[in-house]
Structures are given as structure tokens and as C-alpha cells.
């Protein structure tokens, strides 16, 4: 009964954590010698601060397939179990 809710919450927190920007930006902002970048902060560094918009956009676009695979699997399961959530 709770599985759908748990699945959707998992998906949400997965996406929010994976695409996080604020915390990394404030704590290390990419950190010593760009060692602690994640996709979002790296895209910001290149696209906005380095004003190379196409390259920055492609960096952030790399998140899409990874998150899409997770979303497809989780949402397919939710769909199969029926719409109770």
C-alpha cells in the first residue's frame, strides 16, 4: 500500500539530490581545483561564469539520460501497481 508513495518519494529525492546546486555551491563551490564539482555546479561554472553557454548546457544535459532511466523504471512500477498514490 505504501510502496507507490515510497517509490515516488525515492524518485523525488534522487532527482533533487542528483541535481543539487545550492549546497555544493555554498560549501565548496567546486572546491579545491574543481575536485568537488557535480553536474549542476560544473554547468554553472562553465555556462554562466565562463560564459560558454553551449558547453554549459551540454554539461547539464548529461543529467537527463541518467535521471530518465531512474524515472522510467520507478514510474513504470508505480503505473503497474495501479493508481492509489
Amino acid at each position, binding site marked *: 500500500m505504501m510502496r507507490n508513495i515510497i517509490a515516488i518519494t525515492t*524518485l*523525488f529525492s534522487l*532527482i*533533487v539530490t*542528483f*541535481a*543539487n*546546486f*545550492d549546497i555544493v*555551491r*555554498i560549501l565548496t563551490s567546486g572546491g579545491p581545483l574543481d575536485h568537488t564539482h557535480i*553536474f*549542476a555546479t560544473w*554547468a*554553472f561554472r562553465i*555556462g*554562466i561564469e565562463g560564459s560558454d*553557454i553551449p558547453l*554549459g*548546457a551540454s554539461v*547539464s*544535459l548529461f*543529467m*537527463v539520460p541518467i*535521471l530518465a532511466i531512474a*524515472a522510467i523504471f520507478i514510474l513504470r512500477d508505480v503505473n503497474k501497481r495501479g493508481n492509489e498514490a
Partner: protein
Amino acid sequence: MASTVVISKGAPTRTVKYGSMSRDRIWALRWSYFFLALFAIFSLVPPLYMLITSLKSSAEISAATNPWWVFHPTLENYISLLTSNQFLRFFWNSAWVSIVVVTITMLISVPAAFALARMRFWGSATLATGVFLTYLIPDSLLFIPLFKMFAVVGDWTGIQLINRWYVLLLIYPTLTVPFCTWIMIGYFASIPKELDEAAIIDGASWFQTLTRIFIPVALPGLIAATIFAFTVSWAQFLYPLVFTTSTDQLVLPVGIITSLIKGDVFNWGQIMTGALLGAAPPLIIYAFLMDYYIAGLTAGATKG
């Protein structure tokens, strides 16, 4: 379920119970309070530290004393922030943006949710799923395309949108509207059909059904959505960082970061004070709306 109640033949007797609860439940309650206390401490220590640090002078922060105690409490951080035009400007921008965004969000998402939950039109189920999927797209994916888009719009039409605070009024609803619509669809779907049938029999139009029946009944959901929209637009960090740069256009979170950190110099006392003052409005709004929220929850729609 393990029960301690033993019924012997003859006169039914009970084994010893504590109050009205069995031993298992008492232990479950104790453990849940234990973990509740643990998480409360975990989440309340940072605000406490913020408060402690905000009451210190810069000299005391950098001095090697016990960081968990204020030896010379001072309000100089509060005074210097609340008298600085810059900080008040950030606060004003933040408040203005959040209030307008909440209004826009509610004006869009409540009718949208009503239409998607009740009016069965072609593709309404697909559209509802689409709204949910829109929320799954993170903001860190969208900021560069949006930046480019606004730059192009600025080139074509001459309307300068980048580095103006009101550009945030256009962007924030992309975060708040899908989620609020989704919450409201859930709430509206849980309202029994009999209520709107009764309204239709009494000759109410769709709009009257929405304003007279659905909004009062779904008030808890409405308030939850309002709180969510306000919190998101108050705490949003990435979009204002990207789209606004000059100091008179910044909102509070970005303003604190850019104006109180100068190179490697962190003005910790003022940062903590600013963060504390920035955290206050959502807390106050939440505290006030909480009564409403619970009152709405217990109202009961189909009694009698």
C-alpha cells in the same frame, strides 16, 4: 499482532495493562519519541548555532573561546544589517517576489487542478500526468537554456529581462505551479462526488462549484500548497544567482552570499544574522497558517 490480552474460559479477565496501552505499544511509543528527539536535536542545532553566532562580535567569533556560549552578547550585527539599505533592499525584493509568485501560482494551479480533477475532457488524464512529470525536471537543468532564452528575447524585443528582479516572477512559477497543481489535483480528487452533484443540482456553474464548494473544502490542501510555493520562492538560490547580478536586484539568499562574503573574508556574524532574519518569515507564516491548517483538516465535509 502480538496481544497481551489472554481470555480464559469462564469469566473473561485481563492481564495487567499499563493505562490503555499494551506493553508493545508503550515501547513503540518510547522508541518513536527517542528518535523524534534525536532528529529534533539534529535539525535544531544549526539554527541554535546561528542564533549564538549572530549575537557575537567579530572579535569574539575569531577568538579561541567556547563557540557554544556567548560571553559578550551584542546586537551590533542586527543593528548594522537592519540599518543597511542594501540588506533591506534584498529583503524587500525577496518579499515582493515571493508574494507575487504565490499569487500567480494559486491563480493558475487551483483552476487547473479543478479542471484536471473534475472536468473529464479529452486528454485530461494525460495532461495530469504531464504536470507531474514537469515537476521532475530539476532547476539545474533549466537555468542555462532559460538564460539563453531571456538573452535572445532581450535581443529581439529590446525588453531587458536579465538582471531585473521581475524576471524571477516569470521563472519561479515553473517550479511552483506543477507541484501545487499536483497537490491540488490530489485534494480535489478526494472530495466526494456527491458534493459537486449537489451543487450542480442547486444550479451552480462550474465556477461557483469551484469557489463555493471546492476551495472551502480543500482549504488545508490550498494552504499546504501556498506554504510550499512561498518556501520555494523564498529559498530559491540558483535562479536569482544566475539571472540577477547588480546589488539592487538581488533577493535575500544570493544577497547574503554576495555582499557579506568578500573574497576570502567571511563576515560570519552578519551572515548568521542575515540567515536567521531570512528564515524568520517562512517560520512566522507557517506558525500562523498551522492553526488554519488543522482547523481545515478536522472540518469534515460529508458529515450529516
